[in-house]
């Protein structure tokens, strides 16, 4: 359906043309240029904005990683002082998790979900824009700390009371608590938005069990966000109130318990890691079938295992706290639940492999990265299973063995998955492919660099090297593998550089050429039924869906012997993007204005009430104007969109 679905406007003028309140309330007209990007409510542009911002933060987080590795390359390192090191490794974690990985997933989710379900946009387009700008504002706010007295230095996990004002007197942790609160708003709102979108805006005939696995995984992610973000919001409030207003939540002298922080943080933190990885699982669940020329093996199992992971993820959090003194009963219970959660992921691994088995596998760059996910995540998952055995974890915890585990699942799983998605969907978004040759180079260099960096950390950890330390003394035997890891890190950096060069040179090569034709990969799902790049209105006609992999089944049927035969060409099946005058949600300034106010409120809480007043006024004004702006530009003439002619 293509009605403009907006948050309720409290007052709208019925005679749009004669009563146009102060010029500031009229909707911007869109068009091109920076104004278009800044006022857009188009899910595709928002997806691109998320992707660009997230890549920028990924590079920043990568530089922070290189600094860590330079410092740890040799014993008694002098590259970073201890205090600086604490800030760098804290920001590396915060940046990578909250400002890179989550927004990268949001980029794919925003761009693809409406297309995969046959919709023209999301349920709340202006809220969607708001989520992006609020995320960006929060990311900039946290990073302002570098130049305002020091970045957060308590680790991304921010254990209290270490992160209270007594032991972390600089403003760094205030930027952490307030900044993540801001980005948390973006995630929560987005979670609500995409949940409603997926439930409410599917094309006719698309039941939930005909949705692509990517959309299913993202639905689970949105529900996880909706329920998990409030928990960290409370934890961050408690921390902020302790630091800013003297609340005694974590003051042991008065009876405060440090474990309160740890529990609240990890009740959020464990669902968070599934929020991080399920998008990557969804991406490769599209890539692998496409390049195996087979449907995903066990679609219902893929869906149900994703749902199971979402559920079970709530029952394992204290495995991050095995040595914190919670007692043997709790340890045993969480140890068991952690072992069980390996099962649904194992099902997925088997199903991806079974999809490839017997298929005509094409090793494109996207496919290589996808296979990388399956293999590297398995390694990370196996070390994870060793952590679940609590007595063993007592040795492993707080060592580099843990660092190895989570980088194998985060980098090996999530980042490889993201890159697979980049190479797969680049032509859909930009109208040209990334160079396959350079993509393959990208993959192999990244694979080598990644394994060189994090493989040895298993050994270092078991040999006793502590994590979260700024340096180590000579004579423990840590030198050689640390040096190898540092070299590996620079090889990763090289691979990222190759990717960025690929982006630029592919764009240059494509300039002046017509966009790539439809369906360059002979893919399976609805987003490929539109021209590349996707027209602003998505579908000329909303498709009527009759099966899973609807797009595939329009191209292929089976003959009398049950063999797969091509029944229609891509040109015949794909729409040509020529529909005109399709009604789309109007752009708006106010999501951006609202977002800008928030970091000022944060600065105000740290420095001066005047900033609070300014920021609060700005956000309030943005909200007020948002609610009262006309639903549409009253001058636009539009007609109702068409649904497909069903009589063929």
């Amino acid at each position, binding site marked *: 359906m293509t009605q403009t679905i907006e948050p309720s406007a409290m007052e709208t003028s019925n005679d749009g043309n004669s009563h146009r309140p102060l010029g500031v309330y009229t909707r911007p007209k869109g068009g091109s240029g920076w104004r278009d990007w800044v006022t857009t409510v188009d899910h595709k542009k928002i997806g691109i904005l998320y992707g660009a911002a997230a890549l920028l933060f990924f590079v920043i987080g990568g530089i922070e990683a290189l600094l860590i590795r330079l410092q740890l390359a040799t014993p008694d390192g002098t590259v970073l002082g201890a205090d600086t090191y604490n800030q760098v490794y804290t920001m590396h974690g915060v940046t990578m998790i909250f400002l890179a990985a989550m927004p990268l997933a949001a980029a794919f989710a925003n761009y693809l979900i409406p297309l995969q379900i046959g919709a023209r946009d999301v349920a709340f387009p202006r809220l969607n824009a708001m989520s992006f700008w609020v995320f960006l504002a929060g990311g900039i706010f946290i990073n302002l700390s570098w130049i305002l007295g020091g970045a957060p230095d308590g680790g991304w996990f921010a254990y209290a009371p270490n992160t209270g004002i007594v032991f972390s007197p600089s403003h760094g942790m205030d930027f952490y608590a307030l900044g993540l609160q801001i980005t948390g708003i973006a995630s929560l709102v987005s979670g609500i938005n995409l949940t409603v979108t997926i*439930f409410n805006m599917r094309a*006719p*005939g698309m*039941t939930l069990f005909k949705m692509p696995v990517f959309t299913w995984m993202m639905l689970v992610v949105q529900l996880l966000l909706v*329920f998990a973000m409030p928990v960290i919001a409370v934890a961050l409030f408690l921390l902020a109130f302790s630091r800013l207003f003297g609340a005694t939540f974590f003051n042991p002298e008065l009876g405060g*318990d440090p*474990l309160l922080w740890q*529990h609240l943080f990890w*009740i959020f933190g464990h669902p968070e890691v599934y929020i991080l990885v399920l998008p990557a699982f969804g991406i490769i669940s599209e890539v692998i079938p496409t390049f195996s020329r087979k449907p995903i093996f066990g679609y219902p199992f893929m869906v149900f295992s994703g749902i199971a992971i979402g559920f079970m993820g*709530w*029952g394992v959090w*204290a495995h991050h706290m095995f040595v914190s003194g*919670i*007692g043997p009963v*709790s340890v045993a219970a969480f140890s068991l639940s952690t072992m069980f959660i390996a099962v649904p992921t194992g099902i997925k691994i088997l199903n991806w492999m079974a999809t490839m088995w017997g298929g005509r596998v094409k090793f494109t760059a996207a496919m290589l990265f996808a296979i990388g996910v399956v293999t590297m995540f398995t390694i990370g998952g196996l070390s994870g299973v060793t952590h679940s055995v609590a007595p063993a974890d007592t040795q492993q915890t707080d060592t580099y063995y843990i660092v190895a585990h989570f980088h194998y699942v985060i980098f090996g799983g999530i980042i490889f998955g993201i890159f697979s998605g980049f190479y797969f969907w680049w032509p859909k978004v930009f109208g040209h492919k990334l160079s396959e040759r350079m993509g393959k180079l990208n993959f192999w260099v990244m694979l080598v660099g990644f394994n060189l960096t994090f493989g040895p950390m298993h050994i270092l950890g078991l040999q006793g090297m502590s994590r979260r330390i700024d340096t180590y003394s000579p004579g423990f035997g840590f030198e050689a593998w640390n040096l190898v890891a540092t070299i590996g890190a620079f090889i990763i950096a090289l691979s990222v550089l190759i990717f960025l060069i690929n982006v630029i040179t592919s764009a240059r090569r494509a300039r002046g050429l017509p966009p790539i034709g439809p369906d360059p990969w002979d893919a399976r799902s609805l987003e490929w039924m539109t021209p590349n790049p996707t027209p602003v209105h998505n579908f000329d006609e909303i498709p*009527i*869906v*009759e099966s899973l992999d609807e797009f595939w089944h329009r191209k292929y049927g089976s003959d009398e012997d049950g063999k797969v035969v091509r029944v229609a060409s891509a040109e015949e099946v794909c729409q040509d993007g020529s529909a005109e005058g399709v009604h789309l949600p109007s752009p708006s300034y106010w999501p951006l204005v609202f977002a800008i106010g928030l970091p000022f409120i944060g600065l105000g809480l740290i420095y001066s009430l005047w900033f609070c007043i300014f920021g609060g006024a700005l956000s309030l004004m943005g909200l007020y104007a948002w609610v009262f702006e006309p639903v549409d530009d009253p001058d636009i003439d539009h007609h109702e969109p068409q649904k497909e002619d*069903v*009589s063929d």
Partner: protein
Amino acid sequence: MSTETEHIVESDKSDDEHVHEHPSDKKYFQIAGVLAILTALEVGTYFFEGIPGEILIPLLMIMMVVKFFYVAAWFMHLRFDNSLFMKFFVSGLVLASVVYAVFLTVFEFWHKG
């Protein structure tokens, strides 16, 4: 083939007629009366000293849940609406209850208090 899909579309939708099935104002007043009585009873326990904890606490919990249910089912219209609303709300409620009950259990709250 096309009629099949239209049928699927139809069954996805809830029966819109439910929206027009509203309790009367009189019914709302009656429910408010029940809520008021329950509240009075609850507060009454404060004035009756000597109720042992093992009885008092479950009693209070039951009255609380009943009030909760009446507001959610009738005032929030959940009993008349599409069950998807109830599923989302109950999911949040159950998840929070279970997770935080486990949290309190790890702190040995139930016998340490």
